[in-house]
């Protein structure tokens, strides 16, 4: 990971770098929840914060904070209003917010994910959207199925695009 100088994204000093500290796995993706930076590794999740006054990499890892689950499918990562959601290497759907993370998928969704091959797992795509005060996480195995989690109720539903396709056509969203 490299951090830029404030308000100059393209200005990165050569010594402003860090690696995940607790485990040796590599960083696959990044997400931010509140003031917490989550480096999402291939086998573990860490949480970092900005203590201020750092002379090299701007963030430092929280002590005693580690999850031994990694990001299994990069495109399954979606972030909405400080909620980070993704498919973990334990083949469960994780929801992280602030410094807390937990698997939220019910057993039937877990079973669905456990039956995927590694190739299928890598093709999972997801996005999140908010509407009417609710937060929704939409996970798609292209051409096969689309699942949607309603955060307010915890209810999972299948979604389809009318016209005969088994999955839903949506691939991304943002709130405006």
């Amino acid at each position, binding site marked *: *990971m*490299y*951090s*830029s*100088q*404030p*308000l*100059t*994204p*393209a200005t*990165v000093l*050569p010594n402003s*770098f860090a690696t995940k500290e607790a485990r040796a796995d*590599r*960083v*696959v*993706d*990044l*997400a931010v929840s509140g*003031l917490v*930076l989550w*480096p999402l590794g*291939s086998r573990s999740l860490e949480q970092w914060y*900005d203590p201020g006054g750092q002379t090299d990499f*701007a*963030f430092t890892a929280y002590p005693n904070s580690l999850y031994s689950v990694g*990001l*299994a*499918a*990069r*495109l399954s990562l979606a972030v909405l209003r400080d909620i980070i959601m993704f498919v973990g*290497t*334990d*083949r469960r759907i994780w929801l992280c917010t602030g410094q807390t993370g937990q698997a939220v998928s019910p057993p039937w969704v877990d*079973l669905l994910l*456990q*039956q995927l*091959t*590694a190739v299928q*797992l*890598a*093709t999972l795509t997801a996005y999140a959207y908010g*509407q*009417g005060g*609710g937060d*929704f996480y939409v996970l798609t195995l292209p051409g096969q199925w689309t699942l*949607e989690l*309603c955060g*307010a*109720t915890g209810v999972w*539903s299948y*979604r389809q695009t*009318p016209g005969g396709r088994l999955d*839903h056509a*949506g*691939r*991304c*969203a*943002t709130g*405006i």
Partner: protein
Amino acid sequence: MSVIDVLGSFQDPLNLDEGAGKLVNVRVVPREMKEGKPGKARLVGAPGLTQVSQPTATPCIVVGQALRTVWSGHADGSIYYDVQTNAPSLAGFVDVNPQQPVIRFAEDRTALCIASNANTNNPAEYGTGYTAVMTPAIGVVNAGFDVSINFDPSTVAELNNITVWSGRLISTPVKTARCTVRNR
């Protein structure tokens, strides 16, 4: 069981079913068979969302906000801004892996930060970092990290006005155990 009712247009209050806020041609379909008794039902309909813009025919894979406008990234690497209007503008292109294009956006106060999962200048690398502004003459600019710090990011995040660049893989090799289920 066949469709049992048609309600017309309906605003699903919790978006429990088709997800889109307004559904049209809504039908009620039983979710649980209760042998003639009332059971849970689901609402099936067509999303009633209206199209605002379609900058390109290439699929949109990411949208995000920065510089008080909405940006979109597409599977061919094109980046557009003002996509919340009916007159989006092309900001430029980023390198993406055509097999599985990935584009990440992060909002900085001075620019949209973009990371993609290919690198034309150095194909052996895994990604490229960019910044983008709405000035047509500037648009999308390669941050040149492969030269300045010998690092090519494929993901980006923003916190406390600091941009963090990282990542490099399209997706991780998964080595977890698979569960085999047999019905007896």
